[in-house]
């Protein structure tokens, strides 16, 4: 299974060589490192996912001595590794460029959001295809716009405040709770993906 | 060892191989104890399936022309000419007695049968 993760990294080599320096540029420009981190993590992870999405590649992977469980698990573990790389670069980048240590709360927030996103994306993509993800996002965005415009005009402000509140809350208990909730979601998504993939027909 | 097979012949391919090897053994071209190519090698050389050469070798073995040793291959068996002669004699006896039987049913006498035999025998020469 380690080989499957290594394969993803090898295949992403060129993508990583372009994206990671770009990440540093963004950090230089003083953009919010949290959002940049989330976007880069998700893009890299979903790119690795999309590489393997063709039916023929599923046939290749399944003809090699791996079980379907391992193929799915390699994606979940790989996602974690890619995210860690992004986090490390942000941490080191901030340290070198701005001489500041990234707040652990920021990192926790970023990691949590990426994991939640992946937990939703992976099972969806295993069930359908990641191309449909685009359609799903458009639909979601339309609903979001409708909600913002007609029902809760200040939704964006509420969310922004909510995030601010979250980041300023001091109780460690709350963070522990969030971390546990995210981990549980990730684990459930992992199991769900295995179930979906085991029944998949190529 | 030369073996020539024809894909368009009515005779099955294993039959062609059988006949050609048998002929070589009977004419003494292949000597007792001489080894034959392995089934798989022969199949490769003739560009035919292994099962075809296997069938040919099995028939040859069944009829006592060759013998096989597991892991070593197939060899030409000792040809007992006396026994082969005996077998032939027995076959002749059988066909003759069938002819006699038929003749008796028609009421032919021994002389008549003998005459017929002489006629056929000389005709064939």
């Amino acid at each position, binding site marked *: 299974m380690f080989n499957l993760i*290594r394969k993803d990294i090898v295949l992403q080599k060129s993508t990583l060589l372009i994206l990671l320096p770009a990440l540093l540029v963004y950090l230089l420009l003083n953009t919010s490192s949290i959002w940049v981190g989330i976007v880069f993590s998700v893009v890299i992870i979903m790119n690795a996912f999309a590489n393997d999405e063709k039916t023929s590649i599923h046939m290749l992977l399944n003809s090699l001595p791996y079980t379907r469980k391992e193929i799915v698990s390699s994606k979940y573990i790989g996602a974690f590794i890619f995210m860690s790389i992004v986090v490390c670069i942000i941490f080191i980048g901030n340290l070198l460029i701005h001489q500041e240590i990234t707040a652990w709360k920021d990192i926790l927030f970023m990691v949590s959001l990426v994991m939640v996103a992946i937990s939703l994306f992976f099972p969806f993509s295993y069930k359908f295809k990641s191309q449909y993800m685009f359609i799903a996002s458009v639909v979601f965005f339309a609903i979001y716009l409708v909600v913002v415009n007609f029902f809760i005009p200040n939704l964006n402000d509420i969310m922004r405040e909510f995030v601010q509140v979250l980041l300023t809350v001091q109780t460690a208990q709350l963070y522990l709770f969030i971390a546990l909730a995210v981990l549980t979601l990730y684990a459930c998504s992992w199991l769900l993906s295995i179930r979906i993939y085991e029944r998949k027909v190529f | 060892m030369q073996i020539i097979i024809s894909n368009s012949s009515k005779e099955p391919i294993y039959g062609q191989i059988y006949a050609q090897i048998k002929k070589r053994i009977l004419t003494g071209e292949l000597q007792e104890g001489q080894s034959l190519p392995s089934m798989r090698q022969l199949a490769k050389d003739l560009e035919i399936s*292994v099962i075809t050469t296997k069938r040919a070798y099995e028939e040859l073995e069944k009829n006592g022309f060759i013998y096989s040793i597991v892991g070593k291959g197939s060899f030409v068996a000792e040809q007992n000419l006396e026994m082969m002669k005996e077998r032939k004699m027995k076959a002749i006896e059988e066909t003759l007695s069938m002819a006699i039987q038929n003749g008796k049913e028609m009421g032919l006498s021994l002389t008549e049968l003998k005459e017929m035999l002489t006629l056929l025998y000389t005709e064939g020469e």
Partner: protein
Amino acid sequence: MENVIELQHVHKSFDGFQLKDFSMTVKKGFVTGFIGGNGVGKSTTIKLIMNLLQPDSGTVSLFGLNYKDHEKEIKQRIGFVFDENIFYENVTLVEMKRIIKPSYCNWDDNLFNYYVQTFELPLTKKIKTFSKGMMMKASLTIALSHHAELIIMDEPTSGLDPIFRRELLDILHDLMQDGEKTIFFSTHITTDLERIADYITFIHNGEHIFTKEFYRIEEDYAVVKGGMELLDADTEREFIAIRKSAHGFVALTDQKARIEAIFGDMVLMEKPTLEDIMFHTKKGAEQYV
């Protein structure tokens, strides 16, 4: 004789298609050719054998092991050759090898290099620039480089020119020399089978029609030609399918000896090709519905 592949009472249904009580075996040390028309279940069967599909009921076992408990062990011992590109397109053959190599315990670089040379494959060109023939050679190279005991090929000769098809058969003959390897492949090009196949497995409409030694087909089946006056309700029943015309009939039988006994010299008997058998069996199935 040992069976390398064994399917027992397998059922699998999709929309508008099903495999019905499908049982078959593939014998160790031999080449089995898998024939049948389009859409009769050949690919489905191969996918079942490779565990790309699971049967609704029945069992599939390889080397006497089932996929449920021994998936990795089984796949270590199989080499697959597909008729389409199953590799990543934007990598070279060397990179593809680097990706696949660590998956197999018995990977042999010398063997890989040998086949790359024999097939004259470019190592540093992107796989997406490969022609269909090269793709198949690449697929075969990967499949042969880990000392697989069973080689499964889906339509391996379909995209190849006649010269390489002959060379391929030679390579397969070489593989078969030690008697330990088994080859199972599906094909449309039935003339290839005459040169290599030991057993023929014929499938039609999701049903296993027969698995026979190649020479047995010639012994059992015959194309029978004769005048229309020979046919009546009784004699017609002796055939699998009959094609009638103003000039007489052409029919297929799987009981050559019986037809010989019934008609004697009144009919002409010919050695059937596999295509004859496939064609008439399909017509027969349509006639007697």
